[in-house]
Structure formats: C-alpha cells, structure tokens
C-alpha cells in the first residue's frame, strides 16, 4: 500500500501536467464489454473536475474517487472494491468538495462537471483520523499474531492516515468466530464490516450464504446458522478482506508475509490458466494468490488452484524407482533407471509402443515425448481423459473462440453438456457477470446449480435435435447480436461425439453464432495440458488404430488412463510427480518436477499461451519433464536435437508458432464450416446419438489430478461438502471457541 502510494504519487505529477487521454485512466467498472473498454471514449463523454486545484478529465458517470484516482491521488478505502458494487459504509474515503457542507464519501459520490475536490485539507485529515479512530475502537491489537499483519489495509492506512492516539477507554467488543468451512479462517473480532465478503459472495460467487446480522455495535458478518461457504471461489474473500478477519485456514500461523518470495506464474488446476503468484519460503510453497489479469481471471482464483498446494508436499516421487523381479520398487540412481527404460524398450517395435500425456503435462515435455516416440517409430500418442480421434487440424474446433473476456459481450449463451461451475469456476463467474448484465443463458445437460438462473432445455442429444426443430430459446439465439455456444469437455469424450458436434454445427450455422466480427463457438476444457496437446498434435497417428497391443507404455504424468490403454504384460514407464495411480503400475518410475518447480508452457482453453516459473526447487532427485525425456532419448540412442529450455521452446514455436507468443491469444480462423462438411461423412458412420444425457467430465471438483488428490485440504473440502455443515457430526458446543472445538472443526 505504501509503495503503491509512492507509485501513484509519482504518476500524479505526470498526469496533472499532461492530461493523459482516457485510455490511460483506470478501468471503469461499468464498462463491461471488452470491445468498449478498449476504445478511448470521445471527448464529449468526458467532464473536467479539479482535484486539489489541478484539472483532470474523467469519463461521465465517474465517481469522485475515480476522479482522484485519475489525478493520481490515493484515497484511503476499505469497503470500495472495483469489482464489487459500491457500499459506502466504511467512510474512510471522505474528501472535501467545495460548496458541500460536509465531507463526502468519494466512492459513492458521482463527480459533477467543474467540481472542486480537495483531498489535502485539514477537514479531510480530521475526517480520516476520526473515521480511523472509530474503526479501531473495536479492532483488537493482535497484529503480532495476525496472519494479515504486514499486508493489512487497516494497519497501513492507520499508520498513514490515522491519529497517533485514541480517546476510547471503554471495553472492546468481542465476536464469536464463524466456521465457514475448511478453507476460510475467521477471527470476527477483527472485522470492520466493510461487507466486501458479503458482496463478493452475493455478486461474484453467486452464493447467498453470507450476510450482516444484528445491528449497530452488535452487527456481525456471518451465516446466522452454521453454514459452509459453498462456493468454488470462496478463497477470494481472503484476498478481499482488508483486515485479518478472513484468512487462510490451511496456512494459518505458518508464515509472515515479508518472509515470502513471490513468483509470478500460472495455475494448472484447470484449463483457465489463471494468473497466480506463488509465495514460497525456502523449499516450501506457503500460499498461492491470484494476479490481476482482466483477460483471463480478473482478480479471482478457484479454491482448488489456491489451496491444493499442500498436495505438492505429499506422496511426492523424489528418487527414480525400478521394479525388481519380486515386484518391489528399489530406489536407483538416474543412470540405472534410464538404463532400465532402455532395456524395457529393447526389441519392441515402434508400433508396439504407446505414450499417454497427463493432465498437467507442459508443452515442452509433450513435444519432447512426441519427438522421441516419432523417432522410435511410434505414433500412438494420447492425452489422457481426452478424445483420441478428435480432429485437431482445425484450431477453431477445440478452443474457446470468443475468448474468456469476449464472452462478456455475448447476449445469449447456450451451454451444452457442461457445468462450468466445476470445470472452470472463474470462467463461470464471468458468465454470471454477463448474466447480471442481462444475458440470457440456456443449458442442455443435467440441471446444475450454476449460481445463476438459466433456461433448462433438456438433458441429452434429443434436446439439441428439438432445438434445431425450432424452440423459443433457439429463436432467441437467432435473434441475438452476439450469440455464444459453450460445449463442455464431457461431450468430446462421448462415443457419439461426431453426431453431436454435427448437430451443434448445424445449430451454429442456423443461429448465426459465427459472424464476420463475432465467433461464438466455444469449447471448454478441464485439463491444463489439453489445448497444448491438441496444438502439438499429441494424438494417435492414422496407423495407430490398427497397431497391435502395446508392449511398452510411457506415462507422462498420466494417472487417469483407462485400463484398456495398458495391457497386463506391457512394460510401463511412469514419469511424474506423485505416487498416484500410474506409479504403482509402472516398471520404472522417473520423478519429475511439479508445475511450481519448473518453467513450462501451457495453453488455456481460449488458446492463450502462458508460462509457469519455478518458485521452489525441485524435490529430491526429480528433474524437469522434458530433460528426463531428453535423457531417455540419449540412452536409447535417438538423441533429441535440443539441450536447453530455449532450444525446446524454439522447437515448440516451430511445431506451433503461437506457442512462442507468450501471454497472447492467436485467434484461430473459423474453418469449422468447411471442416464440418468434410466430417459429415464421419458423423454418418459414427454411432447414432445415444439418448444418454450429457454429463460433466468432472465428478469431483476438489480432486481432479495427482496434486489435488494428494492434498489433505482438498479431502477436507470434500468431507465438509458431504455433510454440508462446517463442523463435524458432533456439534462441539454452542460456543465452539475452545481448543477441542477448533480441533474438531479443523479436521
């Protein structure tokens, strides 16, 4: 905060002199669509106000606070948050406005033309000191044991804007802590009632669980009854809380924030590619926070991405293991293990091999494995949980063409066979946001609680057919300016996929989902590696269909393979991070680095290339995935032509040029129309549409891959969701404050 102040102060001088155009002004929350917010508004949409005597131009409809922000003057605030509705209840942002008898709350006051705003007068100073004194009346002095200490808005703003003494000599109140579940720890006495958490839960997460109960000095934030905060985005209230009332329960008392090293990376728990910051101390990941990226995740991060990091410390493979003749694994050194792989490969023909890439594999390791297998004469490559025979030649066929931010511009959205709430929770918040702005949403698939109302159009393929025959919703889709269709990953792994895609394409064509300046066809993916695998063509070759049963299987972090993929007698190499499902089946286990320990390229479901960075050192003897494959290639006598990370990334860019353009989305050319005609034949040959209803590809949100399955926190989440009650079955007394109750609640 203090550094931010310094930054904004330096910026203010520049802006005051130059009157920068509006494009450099802070984002206006009411400009929703991606298209409008990027355009500089014309001058007649602007008004001029004076902030501390300097004129500043701001868009019409801005608040006084936005005017001050535009002038580079930092207004202290607690309840105001640009992503939430304006509450105006903390009163910290009081400023003086000429001709106004009282100081005004700048966050809620619309700026009027020629308004003369003053933020550096004695009145403002006194107002801020007064508000701060009241806020601190009931705030405990437990900063030394508070997890928020050091990054607390209240702490910093009281240092900066508060008085150095208080006139309050009475007793401070105390409030019972609420149990919101296994993720969010509450110390409600610290709460200053900014209601950011309530507004987040109500507006963004779409769960009506939190509220402000009671009145006056007895008011409390809570659920009134003991109720779990049942959102996949609940961890974000921790970031939003300006004080230490809501903190991370799994990370409680484990760090002070100034000890942490920050590494800006991305999340791989789903295919969204949420931008995150991994905070580590020494070799340990202490917490994961979201980074602001308006194009991908705004400011949010799913609970799985935020809290699964304890899985990085459990069940890790830290030394190469080779299965002996007695069936027991013995730890080996790397050369011995690689030798064992070479031996396993001996005498096996190229078409008797298979490679399966896992959900968390980075593009580097997949391109290296593809190159190696191709050199060995093997084309039988699959990406687990994927769809072996999907045609990946046309990129518009497997990405979210509208882009994540672009979906905000849609006016009618049809969800087909998807539950975005668990497949991509942050994306679901984005859809909810468009719904709040009036977008109509329809769903074909089982009914889910998506946190927003939708028109339910049926459960299975028959509903699609019925829509094509003409229905109210289809008409809405046709009439919409920017209609969008979102297909879930569950559809792509169905045996009748081609027939369904055929129907969807017919619908897309009839409803005009793809127009000259609008592509509303979206495929949602549930695994971080999926799009990169399709981009790289990590798919079975044409001949792989007729190949004999594989005798050698290379599992690249794959734990969700199907049993028939690995014959009983096959020699299996498992290269991965965790002793999950794949490792015990393997003959040789090669320990690899997890996503926080290496640089890796991932492509999210809108086709955005992003890279992880190493936040912590690798565990034990483990190595980066692509380096292990490079080493294997050396041992089997088919060395790969790259030795450095730069080298393999160059190879990536050769195979798929957009993989070289980090943080950019290359919008694919829409070829599905042509493509669709070609594959109409395939659809005709393929199975007829089952009447089996669609289903989400994810059965359990909190456990989808090796890391989250190893996480105890995720296990606790599942347990508490099952009971629906934050406490265990035995209710630990009404007060719930003593150690026994805490222990029971923390289990």
């Amino acid at each position: 905060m203090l550094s931010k102040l310094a930054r904004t102060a330096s910026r203010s001088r520049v802006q005051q002199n130059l009157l920068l155009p509006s494009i450099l002004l802070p984002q206006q929350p009411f400009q929703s669509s991606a298209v409008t917010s990027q355009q500089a508004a014309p001058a007649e949409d602007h008004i001029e106000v004076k902030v501390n005597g300097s004129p500043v131009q701001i868009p019409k409809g801005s608040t006084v606070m936005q005017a001050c922000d535009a002038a580079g003057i930092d207004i202290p605030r607690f309840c105001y948050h640009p992503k939430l509705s304006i509450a105006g209840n903390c009163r910290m942002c009081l400023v003086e406005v000429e001709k106004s008898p009282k100081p005004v709350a700048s966050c809620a006051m619309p700026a009027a033309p020629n308004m003369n705003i003053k933020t550096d007068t004695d009145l403002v100073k006194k107002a801020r000191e007064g508000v701060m004194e009241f806020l601190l009346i009931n705030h405990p002095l437990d900063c030394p044991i508070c997890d928020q200490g050091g990054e607390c808005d209240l702490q910093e703003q009281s240092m900066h804007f508060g008085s150095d003494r208080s006139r309050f000599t009475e007793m401070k109140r105390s409030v019972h802590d609420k149990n919101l579940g296994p993720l969010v720890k509450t110390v409600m006495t610290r709460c200053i009632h900014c209601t950011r958490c309530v507004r987040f839960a109500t507006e963004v997460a779409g769960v009506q669980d939190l509220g402000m109960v009671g009145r006056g000095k007895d008011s409390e934030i809570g659920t009134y009854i003991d109720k779990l905060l049942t959102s996949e985005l609940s961890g974000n209230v921790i970031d939003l809380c300006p004080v230490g009332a809501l903190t991370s329960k799994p990370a409680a008392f484990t760090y002070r924030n100034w000890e942490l090293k920050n590494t800006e990376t991305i999340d791989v728990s789903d295919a969204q590619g949420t931008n995150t910051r991994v905070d580590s101390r020494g070799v340990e990941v202490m917490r994961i926070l979201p980074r602001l990226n308006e194009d991908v995740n705004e400011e949010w991060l799913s609970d799985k991405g935020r809290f699964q990091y304890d899985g990085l410390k459990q069940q890790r493979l830290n030394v190469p293991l080779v299965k002996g003749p007695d069936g027991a694994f013995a730890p080996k050194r790397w050369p011995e293990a690689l030798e064992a792989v070479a031996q396993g490969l001996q005498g096996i023909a190229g078409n008797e091999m298979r490679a399966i890439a896992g959900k968390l594999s980075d593009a580097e390791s997949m391109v290296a494995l593809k190159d190696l297998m191709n050199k060995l004469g093997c084309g039988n490559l699959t990406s687990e949980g994927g769809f072996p025979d999907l045609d990946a030649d046309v990129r518009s066929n497997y990405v979210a063409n509208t882009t994540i931010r672009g979906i905000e511009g849609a006016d009618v959205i049809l969800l087909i066979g998807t539950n975005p709430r668990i497949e991509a929770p942050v994306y679901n918040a984005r859809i909810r946001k468009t719904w709040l702005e009036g977008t109509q949403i329809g769903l074909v698939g089982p009914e889910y609680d998506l946190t927003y109302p939708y028109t339910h159009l049926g459960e299975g393929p028959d509903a699609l057919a019925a829509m094509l025959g003409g229905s109210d919703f289809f008409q809405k889709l046709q009439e919409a300016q920017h209609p969008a269709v979102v297909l879930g990953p569950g559809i792509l792994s169905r045996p009748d996929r081609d027939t369904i895609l055929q129907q969807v394409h017919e619908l897309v064509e009839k409803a005009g989902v793809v127009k000259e300046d609008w592509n509303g066809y979206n495929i949602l993916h549930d695994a971080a590696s999926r799009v990169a695998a399709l981009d790289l063509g990590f798919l079975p070759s044409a001949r792989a269909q007729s190949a004999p049963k594989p005798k050698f299987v290379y599992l690249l972090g794959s734990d969700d393979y199907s049993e028939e993929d690995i014959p009983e007698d096959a020699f299996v190499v498992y290269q991965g991070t965790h002793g999950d499902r794949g490792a015990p089946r393997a003959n040789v286990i090669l320990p690899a680095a997890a996503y926080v320990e290496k640089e890796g390229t991932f492509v999210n479901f809108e086709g955005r290339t992003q890279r992880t960075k190493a936040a912590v050192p690798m565990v034990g003897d483990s190595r980066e995935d692509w380096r292990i494959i490079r080493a294997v290639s050396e041992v089997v006598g088919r060395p790969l032509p790259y030795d450095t990370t730069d080298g393999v990334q160059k190879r990536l860019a050769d195979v798929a040029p957009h993989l070289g353009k980090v943080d950019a989305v290359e919008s694919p050319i829409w070829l599905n129309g042509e493509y669709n005609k070609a594959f109409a034949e395939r659809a005709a040959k393929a199975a007829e549409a089952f009447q089996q209803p669609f289903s989400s590809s994810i059965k359990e949100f909190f456990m989808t891959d090796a890391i989250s399955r190893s996480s105890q926190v995720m296990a606790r989440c599942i347990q508490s969701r099952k009971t629906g009650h934050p406490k265990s079955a035995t209710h630990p007394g009404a007060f719930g404050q003593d150690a026994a109750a805490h222990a029971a609640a923390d289990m």
Partner: protein
Amino acid sequence: MLRSSAWKLCRVGQKSLQRQLEACSVTTRAAVFVGADYPSTGRGFAANSHDVFGQHRDEKGNTISTPFDFTDANYDAVADILLRYPSNYKQSACIPLLDLAQQQNNGHLTLAAMRRVAMLLDMPEIRVYEVATFYTMFNRSPVGRYHVMVCGTTPCQIQGSDGIYEAISNHLGLHYGQTSPDGLFTLSEMECMGACVNAPMIAIADYSNGVEGYSYKYFEDLTPADAVEIVKRYKDGEKPEMGSRYRSKAEPAGAVMNGKWTPAQKTMPTLTEAPPGPFCRDLGEMPAPEQPKA
C-alpha cells in the same frame, strides 16, 4: 459439558463487570443483561433487544429441523399481505410476514419460521435472517405471553422511567431480559417508541391468543403505581385500555413529575397563549459596531 463450562467462564467475567458497574448509573446497571434462562455474555447492549446473540443456537423447539407453517387462516393473511406489493418485489413483504409468524408463534421467531418466510418470498435465507436480527421487535428466543417493554430513552428517563422499571421489576421479580417462571411476562427495555410527549411510557405486546388476540399497546403518562396496576390487570386476564392514564391525548393538561401526575399550572406555558419569554434577540438587527479599545 463444554457449554456449561463456557457459561461458567462468562459468569465469572460478568461478576467482575458488575463490580465495575457499581459506580455506574442505575440505567447503565439495569441495561446489563442478567440472564436466568439464557447464558449471559455480560455485555451491556445498546440495541436493547431481548436477544443478545447474532448467531442461531440450537435449543429445544428451535433447531434446523423444527417444523413451522402458517395456519390456514394465516395463509389468508399472507395472501392479503402479498397483494400489497408488486409480484416482482415480493421481498417487500418480509417484515409483515415475519411479524405475522411471530404473532402466530407465541411471540418469537424460530429458525423454521424465518425459513418459511424466505421460502414464501423466494428470498435467500440469510437475507431474512438479516432482517430478523436487525429489528429488535423480532424476538429470536421465547418470550412470555405478555412482553413488557419499558422505554428508557432520554425524554422518558427525564420523566421517571427508572422508577417505572424499578416498580415493575420489583413487582414481577424480573430484570431486563428475563421471563417470569409462569411464562406470563418478559421484561425488556426498548429504545424510543415515539410517545415522548406523554412520557414515561411502556408498551406491552400480548401474545396470549395468537394472531387474533394479538395486541401491541402503549401505556402513557405512567406513575410507578399505574405501571404495576397495568401489569396486575394483565395478569388477571384483563385487557387494559391503552393510551394516557391522565389525559385524552397529548393536550397540555399536565405531566408526570417525580412519580406523580401534576396538573398544568398557570406558570406552565401552553400553546394557547403568548409565551412568557425570554425571547430570541431580533435577528434582523445589525450588531453595534465594535468600539475600538482605548
């Protein structure tokens, strides 16, 4: 076990608080909740609600599984209430429906009653809880058949509400927040009920006979003896008349002073004649220029 030990802890805390309060005024002391039926947290409460907690606690007859539904007759009343509001603003009926539920449910709102209201109005439950916990006239724990509320706000206090409280308290043997063992009376303090002109006053809510028999009566211009008499008549099953004890409305006929009705005297100003002064200076008059000091 945990619960009882926690109560004990609270009582210890409360004793020390009481010691501190010895030096405080009568009102402050009276405002401290001395619980008999309910554990006390020992805090003085500004909201003067009968309930002292902002969190539901499971009690006999008030758990998440306790059933509650409006009676058929009351469903007619529900329908009437809903008719008052546009159908897309049904939640406007939240307070009237909670009030109805409270009347039907012997004067307090159970969790189930709040849930029923939420269900009828398509509101999230927490939004109904927020309303029910905000307003002190909604009781979230059981009250007696007659809920006696003594106004303790400044005008009533000046006119002797402390004496009213003491008289009723001695008569019933109850402190604020307590319910008599026979379940007839609950004594509470209320904030200003807007009858200051006839201070001191009390209000009594009658939950003895469901929604039909429900009444919420103001008794004004009370002497301590009057207050006790009213409570006695309630106890005998009578329905005392509401309003002032000594005048028809709020005419300047006198006032309760020092616990006695004192009729208006000639020296007391009334609105029917010119006020006796002193008056404000003539605001239009220019102040005399200041003489320079010698």
